């Protein structure tokens, strides 16, 4: 059954239809919200409000315009944006992030850090990106959406999304440079010849 039909039934009180719809889209929406906000609790709230908003206002979803998952991503993004605005003082300006490397220089980080620690560093690097760049990276790299889909979700044109994605990658490369093999090779070589 299509998402549209399930949504129609769910909005009329069909609990089974709602559960199918929820199971179908729960994981990607939660994952996206988590990677945007960096908190399980906040991601839970966003996912909850996202689905409840869909049921309360089913007419706001237009199946001709986009797929339901795209709509849910956009709703989650808006809710996350609301959170960012409310906690605007806690966010780091874009310029500072680009100039300031997040990960300290270390000679052999991959040998010292466990996989969990690497994961933590990566998450820290992604979370340190400005929200617009972060959502572009998350949607493209993790959720594997196309640039056109991302553009639809964030309400910008494809060129803008591409630009954000490029800047985000640059920032990530800079932040995670100690963990790149090429960087390590260079560092090791430098140490040998010293």
């Amino acid at each position: 059954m299509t998402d549209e039909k399930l949504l129609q039934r769910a909005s009329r009180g069909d609990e089974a239809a709602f559960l199918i719809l929820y199971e179908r889209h729960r994981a990607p929406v939660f994952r996206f919200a988590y990677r945007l906000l960096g908190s399980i609790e906040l991601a839970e709230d966003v996912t909850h409000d996202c689905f409840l908003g869909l049921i309360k206002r089913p007419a706001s979803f237009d199946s001709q315009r986009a797929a339901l998952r795209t709509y849910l991503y956009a709703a989650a993004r808006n809710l996350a944006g609301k959170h960012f605005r409310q906690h605007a003082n806690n966010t780091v300006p874009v310029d500072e992030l680009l100039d300031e490397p997040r990960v300290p220089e270390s000679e052999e980080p991959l040998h010292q850090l466990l996989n969990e620690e690497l994961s933590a560093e990566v998450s820290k690097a992604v979370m340190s990106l400005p929200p617009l760049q972060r959502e572009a990276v998350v949607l493209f790299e993790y959720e594997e959406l196309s640039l056109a889909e991302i553009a639809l979700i964030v309400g910008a044109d494809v060129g803008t999304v591409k630009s954000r994605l490029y800047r985000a990658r640059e920032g990530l490369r800079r932040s995670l440079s100690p963990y790149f093999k090429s960087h390590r090779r260079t560092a090791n070589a430098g140490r040998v010849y010293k």
Partner: protein
Amino acid sequence: MKHERKYLRLLRLSDPHKTRGEETTRRLSEATPDRELKTLLASWDAPEAPRALDHRLLTSYRTDQQGATRPPMWRRALTSSVPVPLPIAGLTVVALVAVSTALALRPSPVTLESPPAITTLAATRVVEMPVMQERIVTRTVFVEKKEHLTWKKERRGTVVARGANVAGDSAARAKEQTGYFTRVNMTEFQPANEVKIRVIKGNRSDEK
């Protein structure tokens, strides 16, 4: 070309469920391949959505659906609204104002002031009215019978002699007219509607 193939393989490895060749090719054309960055980013796994979220969302869904049930007809009739276009609403208001102004400026007809309504009720007073009772007057009339003329003649003389000063000429006149006379003055006598004749015998002296 070799580099692209490597990147394609990496993408397949990162998500075994997404092996759609067309999509991957499209994504490859959109993004600059950066294998190392991709590998590093893949090391960050997002946690699974907690099961508490399922329960919480289901509860919210049920509550929302209960609240969304249609209210009764009478409540809908009382609380329903009709959307009116703004121009029509504006014209209606202007028309109402014009009509009310015209009615207010029109000379009002002369109206007589009505007397103030009596609000106080008259106090009820009980008045005892005299009840007119029929009074029966009993008079004793002595009729002299003609057949007893012999002894009556004798008695008449005494009676006339005795009541000469009482009845006088009127008694004599009455006797001439009616054939009998009374000792009392009956000039203004009104006979009763009902005559009760009571025969009094001579031997009963206590009879009244």
